[in-house]
């Protein structure tokens, strides 16, 4: 299962909220929230978060599990495994 680790600061709160609305599982990790799903992929869209690009492109600063399939202005797409 892929996961992203969201640093618990106000700037990333909209990203966490978007993951929450999408029904993803959350795990508190002392200043970070690990967000994951039972599905083999995570897809977040920036338009749902309404964060500015500098914040969006820093969204993985807390860490990730899996691999990045796509990470551009519009979409953050993670999948399981290290290699395609």
């Amino acid at each position: 299962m892929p996961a992203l680790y969201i640093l618990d600061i106000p700037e990333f709160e909209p990203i966490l909220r978007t993951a929450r609305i999408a029904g993803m599982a959350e795990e508190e990790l002392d200043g970070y929230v690990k967000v994951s799903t039972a599905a083999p992929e995570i897809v977040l869209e920036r338009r749902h978060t309404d964060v500015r690009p500098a914040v969006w492109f820093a969204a993985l600063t807390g860490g990730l599990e899996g691999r990045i399939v796509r990470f551009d202005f519009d979409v953050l797409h993670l999948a399981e495994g290290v290699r395609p």
Partner: protein
Amino acid sequence: MTEPRPDGGLRMGGVDHIALVTWEPAATCDFYTRVLGLPLVHAITATGWLKEDFPDFVHFFFELGKGNYLAFFYFFGLPEEEPPGDLMHRSRHLAFHVDTEEEMLAWRERIKSHGVRVTHPMQHELLESIYFDDPNGIQLEITRPLRPFGDVDARDAELTLMALADVAGKPDATVQDMWRRKAEIVRTHAGRENG
């Protein structure tokens, strides 16, 4: 005297000066005094006594306030360096601090009024900034905080630099490798600190 740290250790008392090199001393002095309003407070002129191939020089200082100075060297007879590429130009820069958005925007108007090209404000994660170049092509920034740095930021920075140290320098290391390592470090530390 610089106030000691709570643990009694040594602490730096801020920046005294940063020294840069100019091949355009007149334009540099005009820019920093007239456009940015920094007083010229000191200039030393000397032969290059430090070592044999050290050129004769002028070293002049502008006052930034709060005990901080911006200094330039002018070296006689030194061939001008090639300008840096775009990435190094953007990366090696000097950022001046203001407290508020109003001050940042007022500076933007002032810089524009002197015919200097200046960017629109750009919001980063915790800072908002405008950018412009001095007559030497050195990138300058005026930045204001969007919020103060907190303990959570400092702790995260520590874990990030641990992750970076683990991957940097490895062949073909990517930011993705660092983020994977960061997640491992976050998990380890959360387990440790929660008992």
